[in-house]
Protein backbone atom coordinates (compact mmCIF):
# COMPACT_ATOMS: atom_id res chain seq x y z
CA UNK A 1 0.00 0.00 0.00
CA UNK A 2 1.48 3.31 -1.07
CA UNK A 3 -0.33 6.55 -0.26
CA UNK A 4 2.20 9.04 -1.56
CA UNK A 5 2.22 10.81 -4.92
CA UNK A 6 5.12 10.90 -7.33
CA UNK A 7 7.04 14.12 -7.86
CA UNK A 8 5.41 14.49 -11.29
CA UNK A 9 1.91 13.97 -9.94
CA UNK A 10 2.51 16.70 -7.36
CA UNK A 11 3.93 18.99 -10.03
CA UNK A 12 0.84 18.52 -12.21
CA UNK A 13 -1.51 19.10 -9.27
CA UNK A 14 0.35 22.31 -8.45
CA UNK A 15 0.28 23.43 -12.09
CA UNK A 16 -3.50 22.93 -12.22
CA UNK A 17 -3.90 24.68 -8.87
CA UNK A 18 -1.77 27.62 -9.99
CA UNK A 19 -3.80 28.04 -13.16
CA UNK A 20 -7.13 27.71 -11.38
CA UNK A 21 -6.37 30.07 -8.49
CA UNK A 22 -4.47 32.61 -10.54
CA UNK A 23 -6.46 32.69 -13.78
CA UNK A 24 -9.88 31.00 -13.53
CA UNK A 25 -10.67 32.67 -10.23
CA UNK A 26 -10.51 36.17 -11.73
CA UNK A 27 -13.56 35.91 -13.99
CA UNK A 28 -15.44 32.81 -12.85
CA UNK A 29 -18.36 34.71 -11.29
CA UNK A 30 -18.87 36.89 -14.35
CA UNK A 31 -18.70 33.96 -16.77
CA UNK A 32 -21.18 32.05 -14.65
CA UNK A 33 -23.58 34.95 -14.44
CA UNK A 34 -23.47 35.76 -18.15
CA UNK A 35 -23.06 32.16 -19.39
CA UNK A 36 -19.86 33.08 -21.22
CA UNK A 37 -17.87 30.22 -22.75
CA UNK A 38 -14.32 30.18 -21.28
CA UNK A 39 -12.60 30.28 -24.65
CA UNK A 40 -9.33 31.87 -23.50
CA UNK A 41 -9.06 29.45 -20.57
CA UNK A 42 -9.72 26.40 -22.74
CA UNK A 43 -7.02 27.67 -25.12
CA UNK A 44 -4.56 28.24 -22.25
CA UNK A 45 -5.27 24.84 -20.71
CA UNK A 46 -4.83 23.24 -24.13
CA UNK A 47 -1.44 24.98 -24.49
CA UNK A 48 -0.46 23.57 -21.10
CA UNK A 49 -1.51 20.11 -22.30
CA UNK A 50 -4.48 19.61 -19.96
CA UNK A 51 -7.02 18.92 -22.71
CA UNK A 52 -5.38 15.67 -23.80
CA UNK A 53 -3.27 14.93 -20.77
CA UNK A 54 -3.83 11.15 -20.65
CA UNK A 55 -3.35 10.55 -24.37
CA UNK A 56 -0.08 8.88 -25.34
CA UNK A 57 2.63 11.23 -26.70
CA UNK A 58 2.47 9.08 -29.85
CA UNK A 59 -0.88 10.79 -30.52
CA UNK A 60 0.28 14.22 -29.34
CA UNK A 61 -1.04 13.84 -25.79
CA UNK A 62 0.51 14.56 -22.43
CA UNK A 63 1.17 10.92 -21.57
CA UNK A 64 0.11 11.35 -17.95
CA UNK A 65 -1.59 8.72 -15.78
CA UNK A 66 -5.17 8.76 -14.51
CA UNK A 67 -4.02 9.69 -10.98
CA UNK A 68 -2.41 12.88 -12.33
CA UNK A 69 -5.57 13.54 -14.29
CA UNK A 70 -7.90 13.36 -11.28
CA UNK A 71 -5.54 15.55 -9.25
CA UNK A 72 -5.71 18.16 -12.02
CA UNK A 73 -9.50 17.90 -12.41
CA UNK A 74 -9.96 18.35 -8.66
CA UNK A 75 -7.88 21.52 -8.61
CA UNK A 76 -9.62 23.05 -11.65
CA UNK A 77 -13.04 22.13 -10.21
CA UNK A 78 -12.32 23.80 -6.89
CA UNK A 79 -12.61 27.06 -8.78
CA UNK A 80 -14.58 26.39 -11.97
CA UNK A 81 -16.52 23.23 -12.79
CA UNK A 82 -17.64 24.68 -16.13
CA UNK A 83 -14.04 24.54 -17.30
CA UNK A 84 -13.38 21.15 -15.75
CA UNK A 85 -16.38 19.55 -17.48
CA UNK A 86 -15.05 20.68 -20.87
CA UNK A 87 -11.69 19.23 -19.86
CA UNK A 88 -13.25 16.01 -18.53
CA UNK A 89 -15.42 15.32 -21.58
CA UNK A 90 -12.53 15.96 -23.94
CA UNK A 91 -10.06 13.83 -21.96
CA UNK A 92 -11.94 10.90 -20.57
CA UNK A 93 -14.79 10.44 -23.04
CA UNK A 94 -13.67 11.69 -26.44
CA UNK A 95 -9.88 11.24 -26.40
CA UNK A 96 -9.95 8.06 -24.35
CA UNK A 97 -12.70 6.54 -26.50
CA UNK A 98 -10.80 7.30 -29.70
CA UNK A 99 -7.43 6.21 -28.38
CA UNK A 100 -8.80 2.93 -27.00
CA UNK A 101 -11.18 1.92 -29.77
CA UNK A 102 -10.29 4.01 -32.84
CA UNK A 103 -8.13 2.71 -35.66
CA UNK A 104 -4.80 4.22 -36.75
CA UNK A 105 -6.32 6.45 -39.44
CA UNK A 106 -9.00 7.75 -37.06
CA UNK A 107 -6.40 8.51 -34.42
CA UNK A 108 -4.15 10.27 -36.90
CA UNK A 109 -6.94 12.39 -38.32
CA UNK A 110 -9.16 13.04 -35.29
CA UNK A 111 -7.37 12.16 -32.04
CA UNK A 112 -4.23 14.22 -32.60
CA UNK A 113 -5.95 17.63 -32.89
CA UNK A 114 -8.17 16.74 -29.92
CA UNK A 115 -5.19 15.69 -27.80
CA UNK A 116 -3.39 18.93 -28.68
CA UNK A 117 -6.56 20.79 -27.72
CA UNK A 118 -6.73 22.45 -31.14
CA UNK A 119 -10.18 20.98 -31.42
CA UNK A 120 -12.59 20.21 -28.61
CA UNK A 121 -14.63 17.03 -28.61
CA UNK A 122 -18.22 16.32 -27.63
CA UNK A 123 -19.85 13.03 -26.72
CA UNK A 124 -23.40 12.69 -28.07
CA UNK A 125 -25.33 9.95 -26.32
CA UNK A 126 -28.31 11.51 -24.47
CA UNK A 127 -31.50 12.17 -26.38
CA UNK A 128 -34.74 13.95 -25.51
CA UNK A 129 -36.20 10.57 -24.60
CA UNK A 130 -33.07 8.54 -23.87
CA UNK A 131 -31.08 9.63 -20.81
CA UNK A 132 -30.38 6.94 -18.28
CA UNK A 133 -32.07 4.43 -20.59
CA UNK A 134 -29.34 4.71 -23.19
CA UNK A 135 -30.53 1.65 -25.10
CA UNK A 136 -33.55 3.58 -26.39
CA UNK A 137 -31.60 5.45 -29.05
CA UNK A 138 -33.87 7.07 -31.62
CA UNK A 139 -31.11 8.70 -33.63
CA UNK A 140 -30.61 6.49 -36.65
CA UNK A 141 -27.56 5.84 -38.82
CA UNK A 142 -28.76 3.98 -41.89
CA UNK A 143 -26.17 2.09 -43.89
CA UNK A 144 -26.33 3.53 -47.42
CA UNK A 145 -23.48 1.47 -48.81
CA UNK A 146 -20.77 4.14 -49.13
CA UNK A 147 -21.84 6.08 -46.08
CA UNK A 148 -24.22 6.21 -43.11
CA UNK A 149 -27.16 8.60 -43.14
CA UNK A 150 -27.59 10.18 -39.71
CA UNK A 151 -30.94 11.52 -38.48
CA UNK A 152 -32.14 12.46 -35.01
CA UNK A 153 -31.62 14.78 -32.04
CA UNK A 154 -29.13 14.67 -29.18
CA UNK A 155 -29.64 16.53 -25.91
CA UNK A 156 -27.57 18.14 -23.16
CA UNK A 157 -24.39 18.07 -25.20
CA UNK A 158 -21.40 19.59 -23.38
CA UNK A 159 -19.38 21.72 -25.85
CA UNK A 160 -22.24 21.12 -28.33
CA UNK A 161 -21.60 24.40 -30.10
CA UNK A 162 -17.84 24.79 -29.67
CA UNK A 163 -16.74 21.24 -30.38
CA UNK A 164 -15.02 20.50 -33.68
CA UNK A 165 -15.48 16.75 -33.43
CA UNK A 166 -18.52 14.84 -32.30
CA UNK A 167 -18.65 11.23 -31.18
CA UNK A 168 -22.25 10.26 -31.96
CA UNK A 169 -24.06 7.17 -30.74
CA UNK A 170 -26.87 6.07 -33.10
CA UNK A 171 -29.03 3.09 -33.96
CA UNK A 172 -28.14 1.27 -37.17
CA UNK A 173 -30.13 -1.95 -36.77
CA UNK A 174 -33.23 -1.21 -34.64
CA UNK A 175 -34.27 -4.88 -34.73
CA UNK A 176 -31.09 -5.81 -32.85
CA UNK A 177 -31.76 -3.47 -29.91
CA UNK A 178 -28.63 -2.22 -28.20
CA UNK A 179 -26.53 -4.63 -30.27
CA UNK A 180 -27.51 -2.64 -33.35
CA UNK A 181 -26.03 0.61 -32.03
CA UNK A 182 -22.89 2.20 -33.50
CA UNK A 183 -20.56 5.05 -32.58
CA UNK A 184 -19.43 7.51 -35.25
CA UNK A 185 -16.91 10.30 -35.56
CA UNK A 186 -18.75 13.25 -37.07
CA UNK A 187 -17.34 16.57 -38.18
CA UNK A 188 -19.25 19.30 -36.34
CA UNK A 189 -19.51 21.33 -39.53
CA UNK A 190 -20.85 18.54 -41.76
CA UNK A 191 -23.85 19.45 -43.86
CA UNK A 192 -27.19 18.80 -42.13
CA UNK A 193 -26.11 19.54 -38.55
CA UNK A 194 -27.88 22.27 -36.63
CA UNK A 195 -27.21 23.27 -33.04
CA UNK A 196 -30.00 24.38 -30.69
CA UNK A 197 -29.84 27.41 -28.39
CA UNK A 198 -27.54 27.55 -25.37
CA UNK A 199 -29.27 25.83 -22.45
CA UNK A 200 -29.94 28.30 -19.63
CA UNK A 201 -28.67 26.07 -16.83
CA UNK A 202 -28.80 26.29 -13.04
CA UNK A 203 -25.04 25.75 -12.73
CA UNK A 204 -21.94 25.15 -14.88
CA UNK A 205 -23.32 28.05 -16.83
CA UNK A 206 -20.04 28.88 -18.53
CA UNK A 207 -19.89 25.56 -20.40
CA UNK A 208 -21.89 25.49 -23.62
CA UNK A 209 -24.63 22.90 -23.45
CA UNK A 210 -26.81 22.47 -26.51
CA UNK A 211 -29.07 20.06 -28.31
CA UNK A 212 -27.76 18.95 -31.70
CA UNK A 213 -30.01 18.01 -34.64
CA UNK A 214 -28.93 15.75 -37.49
CA UNK A 215 -30.87 15.88 -40.77
CA UNK A 216 -29.61 13.52 -43.47
CA UNK A 217 -26.00 13.95 -42.38
CA UNK A 218 -23.67 11.79 -44.47
CA UNK A 219 -21.06 10.08 -42.31
CA UNK A 220 -18.23 8.33 -44.16
CA UNK A 221 -18.09 4.58 -43.60
CA UNK A 222 -14.55 4.85 -42.21
CA UNK A 223 -15.82 7.05 -39.37
CA UNK A 224 -17.58 4.19 -37.59
CA UNK A 225 -15.69 3.19 -34.44
CA UNK A 226 -15.09 -0.55 -34.10
CA UNK A 227 -17.10 -3.36 -35.66
CA UNK A 228 -20.73 -3.00 -36.70
CA UNK A 229 -22.86 -3.00 -33.53
CA UNK A 230 -20.03 -2.01 -31.18
CA UNK A 231 -21.55 1.38 -30.31
CA UNK A 232 -23.36 0.53 -27.08
CA UNK A 233 -20.35 -1.25 -25.65
CA UNK A 234 -18.22 1.68 -26.76
CA UNK A 235 -20.49 4.12 -24.93
CA UNK A 236 -20.68 2.09 -21.74
CA UNK A 237 -16.94 1.42 -21.53
CA UNK A 238 -16.12 5.02 -22.27
CA UNK A 239 -18.55 6.24 -19.61
CA UNK A 240 -16.84 3.98 -17.06
CA UNK A 241 -13.73 6.12 -17.40
CA UNK A 242 -15.75 9.33 -17.69
CA UNK A 243 -17.20 8.69 -14.26
CA UNK A 244 -13.73 8.98 -12.73
CA UNK A 245 -13.41 12.45 -14.22
CA UNK A 246 -16.83 13.55 -12.94
CA UNK A 247 -16.13 11.98 -9.54
CA UNK A 248 -12.92 14.05 -9.41
CA UNK A 249 -14.92 17.08 -10.47
CA UNK A 250 -17.48 16.56 -7.69
CA UNK A 251 -14.61 16.07 -5.25
CA UNK A 252 -13.07 19.35 -6.41
CA UNK A 253 -16.36 21.23 -6.05
CA UNK A 254 -16.66 19.89 -2.49
CA UNK A 255 -13.06 20.60 -1.52
CA UNK A 256 -13.22 24.07 -3.09
CA UNK A 257 -16.30 24.90 -1.01
CA UNK A 258 -14.64 23.39 2.06
CA UNK A 259 -11.49 25.52 1.67
CA UNK A 260 -13.66 28.63 1.43
CA UNK A 261 -15.72 27.56 4.45
CA UNK A 262 -12.60 27.00 6.58
CA UNK A 263 -11.20 30.37 5.60
CA UNK A 264 -14.48 32.12 6.36
CA UNK A 265 -14.97 30.32 9.67
CA UNK A 266 -11.55 31.52 10.84
CA UNK A 267 -12.35 35.14 9.97
CA UNK A 268 -16.01 35.66 10.75
CA UNK A 269 -16.76 36.54 14.34
CA UNK A 270 -19.96 35.91 16.24
CA UNK A 271 -20.62 36.01 19.98
CA UNK A 272 -17.16 37.43 20.60
CA UNK A 273 -15.05 34.86 18.79
CA UNK A 274 -14.34 33.41 15.35
CA UNK A 275 -17.19 31.12 14.36
CA UNK A 276 -14.69 28.25 13.90
CA UNK A 277 -14.45 28.27 17.70
CA UNK A 278 -18.13 27.39 17.99
CA UNK A 279 -18.51 23.65 18.11
CA UNK A 280 -21.55 23.67 15.82
CA UNK A 281 -19.34 25.08 13.06
CA UNK A 282 -16.18 23.13 13.97
CA UNK A 283 -18.09 19.83 13.86
CA UNK A 284 -19.57 20.70 10.49
CA UNK A 285 -16.04 21.29 9.19
CA UNK A 286 -14.94 18.00 10.72
CA UNK A 287 -17.76 16.10 8.99
CA UNK A 288 -17.00 17.81 5.70
CA UNK A 289 -13.30 16.94 5.97
CA UNK A 290 -14.03 13.26 6.59
CA UNK A 291 -16.44 13.08 3.65
CA UNK A 292 -14.01 14.79 1.31
CA UNK A 293 -11.18 12.50 2.34
CA UNK A 294 -13.41 9.44 1.82
CA UNK A 295 -14.36 10.70 -1.63
CA UNK A 296 -10.74 11.42 -2.49
CA UNK A 297 -9.71 7.88 -1.58
CA UNK A 298 -12.50 6.44 -3.78
CA UNK A 299 -11.50 8.64 -6.72
CA UNK A 300 -7.80 7.82 -6.39
CA UNK A 301 -8.56 4.10 -6.05
CA UNK A 302 -10.59 4.14 -9.28
CA UNK A 303 -7.86 6.10 -11.08
CA UNK A 304 -5.16 3.81 -9.74
CA UNK A 305 -7.07 0.71 -10.92
CA UNK A 306 -7.34 2.29 -14.37
CA UNK A 307 -3.60 2.98 -14.39
CA UNK A 308 -2.92 -0.63 -13.39
CA UNK A 309 -5.16 -1.87 -16.25
CA UNK A 310 -7.41 -3.57 -13.69
CA UNK A 311 -11.22 -3.51 -13.86
CA UNK A 312 -12.43 -0.14 -12.56
CA UNK A 313 -16.12 -0.01 -13.56
CA UNK A 314 -17.54 -0.59 -10.09
CA UNK A 315 -14.85 1.51 -8.40
CA UNK A 316 -15.59 4.42 -10.72
CA UNK A 317 -19.36 4.05 -10.09
CA UNK A 318 -18.74 4.10 -6.33
CA UNK A 319 -16.48 7.13 -6.63
CA UNK A 320 -18.94 8.99 -8.85
CA UNK A 321 -22.03 8.25 -6.77
CA UNK A 322 -20.36 8.99 -3.45
CA UNK A 323 -18.56 12.15 -4.55
CA UNK A 324 -21.59 13.61 -6.35
CA UNK A 325 -23.88 13.12 -3.36
CA UNK A 326 -21.13 14.21 -0.98
CA UNK A 327 -20.48 17.38 -3.03
CA UNK A 328 -24.14 18.30 -2.67
CA UNK A 329 -23.97 17.83 1.12
CA UNK A 330 -20.64 19.61 1.57
CA UNK A 331 -21.50 22.61 -0.60
CA UNK A 332 -24.84 22.98 1.21
CA UNK A 333 -23.00 23.07 4.53
CA UNK A 334 -20.45 25.51 3.13
CA UNK A 335 -23.31 27.88 2.27
CA UNK A 336 -24.73 27.36 5.77
CA UNK A 337 -21.39 28.25 7.40
CA UNK A 338 -21.25 31.42 5.31
CA UNK A 339 -24.79 32.35 6.41
CA UNK A 340 -26.25 35.19 4.38
CA UNK A 341 -22.92 35.80 2.63
CA UNK A 342 -23.10 32.24 1.33
CA UNK A 343 -26.31 33.07 -0.49
CA UNK A 344 -24.78 35.85 -2.56
CA UNK A 345 -22.58 35.33 -5.57
CA UNK A 346 -19.36 37.04 -4.53
CA UNK A 347 -18.56 34.38 -1.92
CA UNK A 348 -18.54 31.57 -4.53
CA UNK A 349 -20.13 28.84 -2.42
CA UNK A 350 -23.65 29.28 -3.81
CA UNK A 351 -22.22 28.68 -7.30
CA UNK A 352 -20.35 25.60 -6.12
CA UNK A 353 -23.62 24.31 -4.64
CA UNK A 354 -25.39 24.83 -7.99
CA UNK A 355 -22.51 23.10 -9.79
CA UNK A 356 -22.56 20.15 -7.39
CA UNK A 357 -26.15 19.35 -8.31
CA UNK A 358 -25.25 18.49 -11.89
CA UNK A 359 -22.67 15.91 -10.85
CA UNK A 360 -25.53 13.81 -9.45
CA UNK A 361 -27.23 13.88 -12.85
CA UNK A 362 -24.82 13.76 -15.78
CA UNK A 363 -22.59 10.93 -17.02
CA UNK A 364 -24.87 8.52 -15.17
CA UNK A 365 -27.19 9.69 -12.40
CA UNK A 366 -26.48 8.66 -8.82
CA UNK A 367 -29.32 6.16 -9.23
CA UNK A 368 -27.69 4.60 -12.30
CA UNK A 369 -24.43 4.28 -10.35
CA UNK A 370 -26.35 2.43 -7.64
CA UNK A 371 -27.66 0.02 -10.29
CA UNK A 372 -24.07 -0.65 -11.40
CA UNK A 373 -22.85 -1.09 -7.82
CA UNK A 374 -25.79 -3.22 -6.63
CA UNK A 375 -25.57 -5.51 -9.65
CA UNK A 376 -21.94 -6.10 -8.85
CA UNK A 377 -22.71 -6.73 -5.18
CA UNK A 378 -25.54 -9.15 -6.01
CA UNK A 379 -23.96 -10.88 -8.99
CA UNK A 380 -22.87 -14.09 -7.24
Amino acid at each position, binding site marked *: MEFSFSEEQLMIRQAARDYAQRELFTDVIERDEKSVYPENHVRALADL*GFMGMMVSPEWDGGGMDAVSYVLAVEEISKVDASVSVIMSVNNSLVCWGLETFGNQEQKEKYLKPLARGEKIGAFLLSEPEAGSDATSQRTTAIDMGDYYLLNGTKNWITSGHTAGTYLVIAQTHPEKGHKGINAFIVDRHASGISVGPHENKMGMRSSDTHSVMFTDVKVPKENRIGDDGFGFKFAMQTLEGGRIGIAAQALGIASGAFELAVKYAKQRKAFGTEIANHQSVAFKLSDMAVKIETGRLLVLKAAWLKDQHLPYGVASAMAKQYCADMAMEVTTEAVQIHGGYGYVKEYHVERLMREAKLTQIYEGTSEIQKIVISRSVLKD
Partner: protein
Amino acid sequence: MKIAVCLSHVPDTTTRIKIGSQSDQIDYTGVQWVINPWDELALTRALELKELPGSGVDEVVVVNVGDSIADPVIRKALAIGADRAVRVNTAPSDSLSVARILAAFFATERFDLILAGLESSDYNGGMTGMLLGGVLGYRTLNGISALNLEAGKLKLSREMDGSRQILVVEPPLVAVVQKGIAIVPRIPSMRGVMQARTKPLQVVDPVKVEAGLTTIGYSYPKPKGACRMVAPGNENELIALLKTEARVL
Protein backbone atom coordinates in the same frame (compact mmCIF):
# COMPACT_ATOMS: atom_id res chain seq x y z
CA MET B 1 24.34 33.69 -25.69
CA LYS B 2 24.08 31.60 -22.55
CA ILE B 3 21.89 32.64 -19.64
CA ALA B 4 22.15 31.22 -16.14
CA VAL B 5 19.38 31.68 -13.59
CA CYS B 6 20.40 31.30 -9.94
CA LEU B 7 17.57 29.42 -8.33
CA SER B 8 16.92 29.08 -4.61
CA HIS B 9 14.57 26.55 -3.13
CA VAL B 10 12.49 28.11 -0.36
CA PRO B 11 9.58 27.00 1.82
CA ASP B 12 6.21 27.66 0.21
CA THR B 13 5.34 31.27 0.96
CA THR B 14 2.28 30.25 3.00
CA THR B 15 4.40 28.07 5.34
CA ARG B 16 4.13 28.81 9.04
CA ILE B 17 7.74 28.88 10.20
CA LYS B 18 8.55 26.61 13.15
CA ILE B 19 11.68 26.93 15.22
CA GLY B 20 13.24 23.55 16.03
CA SER B 21 13.71 22.08 19.49
CA GLN B 22 17.26 23.48 19.29
CA SER B 23 16.49 27.15 18.94
CA ASP B 24 19.35 27.67 16.48
CA GLN B 25 17.52 25.65 13.82
CA ILE B 26 14.37 25.95 11.77
CA ASP B 27 12.19 22.84 11.76
CA TYR B 28 11.62 22.04 8.09
CA THR B 29 9.50 18.94 8.75
CA GLY B 30 6.58 18.77 6.32
CA VAL B 31 7.64 21.96 4.52
CA GLN B 32 6.75 22.16 0.85
CA TRP B 33 9.65 23.57 -1.14
CA VAL B 34 9.06 25.89 -4.05
CA ILE B 35 11.14 27.95 -6.44
CA ASN B 36 11.93 31.30 -4.85
CA PRO B 37 9.30 33.63 -6.41
CA TRP B 38 11.85 36.20 -7.68
CA ASP B 39 13.93 33.44 -9.26
CA GLU B 40 10.82 32.02 -10.91
CA LEU B 41 10.17 35.39 -12.55
CA ALA B 42 13.84 35.58 -13.61
CA LEU B 43 13.53 32.14 -15.22
CA THR B 44 10.32 33.16 -16.94
CA ARG B 45 12.01 36.23 -18.47
CA ALA B 46 15.06 34.20 -19.52
CA LEU B 47 12.78 31.77 -21.36
CA GLU B 48 10.80 34.59 -22.94
CA LEU B 49 14.05 36.04 -24.29
CA LYS B 50 15.18 32.66 -25.62
CA GLU B 51 11.89 32.22 -27.47
CA LEU B 52 12.09 35.59 -29.24
CA PRO B 53 12.79 35.02 -32.94
CA GLY B 54 16.50 35.52 -33.63
CA SER B 55 17.23 36.18 -29.96
CA GLY B 56 20.58 34.42 -30.15
CA VAL B 57 19.99 32.81 -26.75
CA ASP B 58 21.26 29.24 -27.07
CA GLU B 59 20.68 27.95 -23.60
CA VAL B 60 18.99 28.73 -20.30
CA VAL B 61 20.54 26.90 -17.35
CA VAL B 62 19.34 26.96 -13.74
CA VAL B 63 21.98 26.81 -11.03
CA ASN B 64 21.15 25.90 -7.45
CA VAL B 65 23.15 25.55 -4.27
CA GLY B 66 21.43 22.85 -2.28
CA ASP B 67 21.23 19.27 -1.21
CA SER B 68 18.93 16.69 -2.80
CA ILE B 69 15.89 18.24 -1.11
CA ALA B 70 16.03 20.84 -3.89
CA ASP B 71 15.74 18.31 -6.74
CA PRO B 72 11.92 18.43 -7.16
CA VAL B 73 12.08 22.22 -7.29
CA ILE B 74 14.89 22.08 -9.86
CA ARG B 75 12.94 19.59 -11.98
CA LYS B 76 10.00 21.96 -11.93
CA ALA B 77 12.31 24.62 -13.40
CA LEU B 78 13.26 22.12 -16.11
CA ALA B 79 9.56 21.40 -16.72
CA ILE B 80 8.92 25.13 -17.03
CA GLY B 81 11.50 25.21 -19.81
CA ALA B 82 15.11 25.49 -18.60
CA ASP B 83 17.40 23.44 -20.86
CA ARG B 84 19.44 21.91 -18.06
CA ALA B 85 20.25 22.32 -14.41
CA VAL B 86 23.30 22.32 -12.17
CA ARG B 87 23.04 21.69 -8.44
CA VAL B 88 26.06 22.46 -6.34
CA ASN B 89 25.72 19.80 -3.72
CA THR B 90 25.70 21.51 -0.35
CA ALA B 91 23.08 23.02 1.93
CA PRO B 92 23.13 26.80 1.46
CA SER B 93 24.34 28.90 4.35
CA ASP B 94 25.03 32.64 4.49
CA SER B 95 24.94 34.87 1.41
CA LEU B 96 28.70 35.29 0.99
CA SER B 97 29.31 31.54 1.24
CA VAL B 98 26.62 30.85 -1.37
CA ALA B 99 28.02 33.61 -3.59
CA ARG B 100 31.53 32.12 -3.35
CA ILE B 101 30.24 28.63 -4.13
CA LEU B 102 28.29 29.94 -7.12
CA ALA B 103 31.26 32.02 -8.30
CA ALA B 104 33.47 28.93 -8.20
CA PHE B 105 31.01 27.13 -10.45
CA PHE B 106 30.71 30.09 -12.83
CA ALA B 107 34.50 30.12 -13.07
CA THR B 108 34.25 26.68 -14.66
CA GLU B 109 31.50 27.60 -17.12
CA ARG B 110 31.08 31.04 -18.59
CA PHE B 111 27.66 32.60 -19.00
CA ASP B 112 26.93 35.89 -20.75
CA LEU B 113 24.13 36.77 -18.40
CA ILE B 114 23.57 35.57 -14.85
CA LEU B 115 20.19 36.37 -13.34
CA ALA B 116 19.47 36.33 -9.63
CA GLY B 117 16.29 37.22 -7.80
CA LEU B 118 16.20 40.30 -5.59
CA GLU B 119 16.07 38.18 -2.44
CA SER B 120 15.00 34.74 -1.30
CA SER B 121 11.66 34.60 0.46
CA ASP B 122 13.06 32.63 3.40
CA TYR B 123 15.93 34.67 4.88
CA ASN B 124 15.33 37.83 2.83
CA GLY B 125 19.06 38.57 2.80
CA GLY B 126 18.97 40.28 -0.57
CA MET B 127 22.74 40.03 -0.97
CA THR B 128 23.68 36.87 -2.87
CA GLY B 129 23.30 38.26 -6.40
CA MET B 130 25.33 41.37 -5.69
CA LEU B 131 28.00 39.43 -3.79
CA LEU B 132 28.21 36.91 -6.65
CA GLY B 133 28.90 39.71 -9.12
CA GLY B 134 31.56 41.06 -6.81
CA VAL B 135 33.32 37.74 -6.27
CA LEU B 136 33.17 36.97 -10.00
CA GLY B 137 34.36 40.44 -10.93
CA TYR B 138 31.44 40.91 -13.35
CA ARG B 139 29.57 44.12 -13.89
CA THR B 140 26.55 43.83 -11.60
CA LEU B 141 23.28 45.72 -11.53
CA ASN B 142 20.48 45.43 -9.02
CA GLY B 143 16.81 46.36 -9.03
CA ILE B 144 16.37 45.35 -12.67
CA SER B 145 12.72 45.52 -13.71
CA ALA B 146 13.02 45.05 -17.48
CA LEU B 147 15.47 43.12 -19.60
CA ASN B 148 15.83 42.93 -23.38
CA LEU B 149 18.42 41.99 -25.95
CA GLU B 150 19.58 44.39 -28.64
CA ALA B 151 22.23 43.38 -31.15
CA GLY B 152 24.06 41.15 -28.70
CA LYS B 153 23.89 43.74 -25.93
CA LEU B 154 21.69 43.77 -22.88
CA LYS B 155 19.19 46.56 -22.45
CA LEU B 156 17.90 46.91 -18.93
CA SER B 157 15.73 49.15 -16.81
CA ARG B 158 16.44 49.92 -13.16
CA GLU B 159 13.94 51.35 -10.77
CA MET B 160 15.17 54.47 -9.01
CA ASP B 161 13.56 56.78 -6.52
CA GLY B 162 10.87 58.45 -8.59
CA SER B 163 12.34 57.52 -11.95
CA ARG B 164 13.71 54.75 -14.10
CA GLN B 165 17.22 54.31 -15.47
CA ILE B 166 17.67 52.70 -18.88
CA LEU B 167 21.04 51.02 -19.47
CA VAL B 168 22.82 49.16 -22.22
CA VAL B 169 25.48 46.72 -21.05
CA GLU B 170 27.99 44.48 -22.75
CA PRO B 171 27.95 40.96 -21.43
CA PRO B 172 28.94 39.37 -19.14
CA LEU B 173 26.61 40.71 -16.52
CA VAL B 174 25.05 39.69 -13.24
CA ALA B 175 21.54 41.17 -13.10
CA VAL B 176 19.60 41.14 -9.84
CA VAL B 177 15.97 41.28 -10.88
CA GLN B 178 12.82 42.45 -9.18
CA LYS B 179 9.14 43.11 -9.80
CA GLY B 180 8.32 43.83 -13.43
CA ILE B 181 10.95 41.54 -14.95
CA ALA B 182 8.10 39.19 -15.93
CA ILE B 183 4.40 39.50 -15.29
CA VAL B 184 3.44 36.04 -14.03
CA PRO B 185 5.62 32.98 -13.50
CA ARG B 186 5.18 30.19 -16.01
CA ILE B 187 3.20 27.09 -15.27
CA PRO B 188 4.80 23.84 -16.45
CA SER B 189 2.99 22.16 -19.35
CA MET B 190 2.44 18.41 -19.68
CA ARG B 191 5.00 18.40 -22.47
CA GLY B 192 7.41 20.23 -20.19
CA VAL B 193 6.84 17.74 -17.38
CA MET B 194 7.58 14.90 -19.80
CA GLN B 195 10.70 16.56 -21.21
CA ALA B 196 12.00 17.26 -17.71
CA ARG B 197 12.36 13.51 -17.25
CA THR B 198 15.30 13.45 -19.64
CA LYS B 199 16.84 16.90 -19.21
CA PRO B 200 20.24 16.90 -17.48
CA LEU B 201 20.44 17.72 -13.77
CA GLN B 202 24.15 17.81 -13.10
CA VAL B 203 25.29 17.54 -9.48
CA VAL B 204 28.69 19.10 -8.79
CA ASP B 205 30.78 19.29 -5.64
CA PRO B 206 31.11 22.63 -3.88
CA VAL B 207 34.35 24.41 -3.18
CA LYS B 208 35.18 24.73 0.48
CA VAL B 209 34.27 28.06 1.96
CA GLU B 210 35.16 29.17 5.42
CA ALA B 211 32.22 29.55 7.73
CA GLY B 212 32.49 32.95 9.34
CA LEU B 213 28.95 33.31 10.43
CA THR B 214 27.00 31.24 12.94
CA THR B 215 23.34 31.56 13.79
CA ILE B 216 23.03 31.52 17.57
CA GLY B 217 19.28 31.34 17.71
CA TYR B 218 15.91 32.21 16.26
CA SER B 219 12.95 33.66 18.05
CA TYR B 220 9.38 34.41 17.10
CA PRO B 221 8.20 38.00 16.90
CA LYS B 222 5.88 39.08 19.68
CA PRO B 223 2.32 38.12 18.89
CA LYS B 224 0.24 41.02 17.70
CA GLY B 225 -1.87 42.34 20.51
CA ALA B 226 -5.60 42.57 20.16
CA CYS B 227 -6.90 45.87 18.89
CA ARG B 228 -7.94 48.10 21.81
CA MET B 229 -10.97 50.27 21.14
CA VAL B 230 -11.13 53.60 22.89
CA ALA B 231 -14.56 55.15 23.11
CA PRO B 232 -15.03 58.60 21.52
CA GLY B 233 -14.37 61.37 24.02
CA ASN B 234 -11.79 59.38 26.01
CA GLU B 235 -8.75 61.02 24.45
CA ASN B 236 -6.93 61.05 27.79
CA GLU B 237 -7.24 57.29 28.03
CA LEU B 238 -5.87 56.99 24.48
CA ILE B 239 -2.87 59.18 25.30
CA ALA B 240 -2.23 57.22 28.48
CA LEU B 241 -2.31 53.92 26.56
CA LEU B 242 0.04 55.27 23.89
CA LYS B 243 2.45 56.30 26.63
CA THR B 244 2.29 53.32 28.94
CA GLU B 245 1.42 50.33 26.73
CA ALA B 246 2.45 51.20 23.19
CA ARG B 247 5.26 53.42 24.47
CA VAL B 248 5.26 55.51 21.35
CA LEU B 249 4.78 58.84 23.04
